[in-house]
């Protein structure tokens, strides 16, 4: 068995070679290691159908766009296969219907680019010959794998710059839902900021959507009204960056380089890139090598901080870059105890570091983050 941490440090491409080895979640036991047993049968490229189910529109210039680029990379690498996608799939029984429709339409491999939980699980469970991948997924089957990005490292790096560029020390966060990726994003961001300003705090507003430009804009406005001067969030579009630009605040974004929507406000972005991952998994599927994996794309290949914005001072950028280098070479891990939760309980003891799986499943706020814990 390979430990999660060492896996994330290697490229994920090695995981395909180490087929049959999946991550084990010791705490829950629900995620089983992928069976070394029979991979799904090979598919001829001209007969293959690869389907993508998205949470937002592919034109969002954010999360869904990045996954759509991945699909285009698959098309370029395997020009003879057929691709299809459905965008803006709601988190309701409609999701089940759409994924079932992919199966009915003879899909060989289905990528759900967001966590659709049981809506996807139930479909995968009844279609054992179709390979399924769930982004940010939590459950596994012999034909259902998961993949995500270890975004907490770039979030921490961006937090360092944010802390240095926030005179008030009040950071704002436009959150989708109180889910682990939001907890890890807010916590890592504030931990980074606190290396510069130990008094920094972070206020989150939950808008119950990944793509709702209007609600994100309102949340961004409310946060700035509350005195926040650097905004972060996990939105699939640029709404709160435009608010920050108008109000003279700063912003850190997600997914893609969005600086043209707020050249003065833009600090950086948590850039994601799924192209290599998708091409490799489709290759494995076609070749008859595919068994499910639980992948976390590591910092530097799949997820990274974007080039710094125009208004980031050189010394701030240099400091953040130095920390980034020390994380990348393994000499520094920011998620080292002691870490307290928002109620003051010690959750990570002094001297202990959080494992990659603990970061992936992070479901509590650190002290200083408000708006998520109930």
């Amino acid at each position: 068995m390979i430990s999660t941490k060492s896996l994330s440090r290697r490229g994920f491409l090695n995981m395909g070679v180490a087929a049959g080895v999946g991550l084990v979640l010791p705490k829950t036991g629900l995620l089983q290691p992928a069976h070394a047993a029979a991979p799904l049968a090979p598919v001829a490229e001209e007969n293959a159908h690869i389907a993508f189910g998205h949470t937002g529109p592919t034109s969002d210039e954010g999360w869904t766009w990045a996954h759509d680029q991945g699909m285009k990379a698959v098309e370029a690498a395997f020009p003879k296969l057929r691709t299809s996608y459905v965008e803006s799939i709601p988190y309701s029984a409609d999701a089940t219907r759409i994924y079932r429709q992919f199966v009915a339409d003879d899909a060989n491999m289905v990528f759900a680019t967001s966590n659709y939980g049981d809506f996807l699980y139930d479909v995968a469970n009844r279609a054992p010959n179709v390979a399924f991948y769930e982004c940010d997924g939590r459950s596994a089957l012999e034909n259902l794998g998961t993949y995500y990005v270890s975004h907490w490292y770039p979030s921490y790096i961006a937090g360092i710059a944010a802390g240095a560029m926030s005179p008030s020390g009040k950071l704002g966060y436009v959150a989708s839902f109180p889910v682990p990726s939001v907890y890890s994003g807010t916590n890592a961001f504030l931990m980074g900021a606190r290396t510069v300003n130990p008094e920094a705090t972070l206020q989150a507003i939950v808008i119950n959507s990944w793509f709702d430009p209007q609600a994100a804009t309102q949340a961004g406005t409310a946060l700035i009204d509350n005195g926040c001067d650097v905004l972060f969030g996990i939105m699939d579009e640029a709404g709160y960056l435009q608010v920050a630009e108008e109000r003279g605040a700063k912003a850190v974004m997600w997914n893609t380089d969005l600086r043209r929507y707020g050249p003065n406000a833009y600090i950086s972005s948590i850039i994601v890139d799924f192209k290599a991952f998708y091409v490799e998994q489709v290759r494995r599927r076609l070749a008859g090598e595919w068994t499910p994996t639980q992948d976390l794309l590591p910092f530097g290949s799949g997820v990274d901080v974007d080039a710094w914005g125009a208004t980031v001072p050189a010394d701030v950028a240099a400091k953040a870059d130095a920390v980034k280098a020390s994380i990348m070479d393994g000499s520094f891990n920011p998620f080292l105890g002691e870490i307290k939760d928002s109620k003051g309980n010690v959750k990570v003891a002094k001297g202990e570091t959080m494992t990659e799986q603990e970061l992936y499943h992070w479901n509590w706020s650190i002290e200083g983050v408000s708006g998520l814990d109930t």
Partner: protein
Amino acid sequence: MNLIRLQRMPIATPRVAFAFRVASVLLALFTTAIALSISGRSPVALGAKVISATFGSSFGLEDLALLFSPLVYCGLSVAVALRIGAWNIGAEGQFNFGAFCATGVALFVQGPTWVILPLMALAGMVGGALWILIPTLARAYADVSELITTLLMNFVAILLVYWVATGPWLDPSGMALATTSRLPVSVPALWGIVHWGPLVGIFLAIALALFVTYTRWGYEVRIAGANPGAARYAGMPVKTQLIGIMLLSGAIAGLGGMMEVAGTVGRLQGGISNNYGYIGIMVAVLARAAPIGVLATAFFMAVLLNGGIVLQSQGLTTHTVLAVTGLILLYAAIGDEMAHYKILHPKVKDI
């Protein structure tokens, strides 16, 4: 010369009304087909795909039945209120709150399935009725338009469900995001993955039709809906009827929510209502508030929505699908009005 004159008749005969209804649906589909060909797609191929995917496989038929369930409950909910002249725009909220109450029972009451399931159904109905209680009393005693109050209550219920599903009732296993644990009990399956929800909905529609047609109460409700002043003058308890019918309306939507959470989805989570409450308004209006008609229009709407999903997997966006539903409703409204007109050929003497 002969002048053709149009005269509006107070009542459209059922045959004419039906003909106009069919014509308007066909016309809407035809308009869609034109729009699709302009955008370079083959409407015939897409139509064939929709029909074969919906009716040609057990997959499609199962999906159809599961879509039918919430639409029947929400449609009946709106239709029942319409019988007494009340617009329940809040089926969405009652659906959510019914699902919420049923989930509460499932998560926190322990017992054998045959006790818990009826209890969940009861909780769903009571929840739905509770959610319309304030708008009902406001309408009955203060003459506050239920149109606005029921609508506003929707947002409260929707956000309440989001909150419990991501907060206090969040699945503690960490294996599911933004949702409660899987409910320990579920509505038993009848066929494939189709549970009792659709069938119970059909029985409910028949029961309501009999109630409206054959009971004194049903008769009085119809009178009170058609002319409250006359009903009051005739000594009918209009206020009591209004309250009873509106609570019944809420209870039906709440039961639909229970069926959705305990039958189709298995967990309570934000967005579970999927706009069924609003689509229910369309279902009821197209059915002219007749319970048996609701069965037909809910089925039609289920085919349409399921067709929408097939179309999406063929590369069309959700907006196209919404536009088609909107078109059909618009054409149906025009057709309904036109069905009232009669062409008169006045006899003119030859000179």
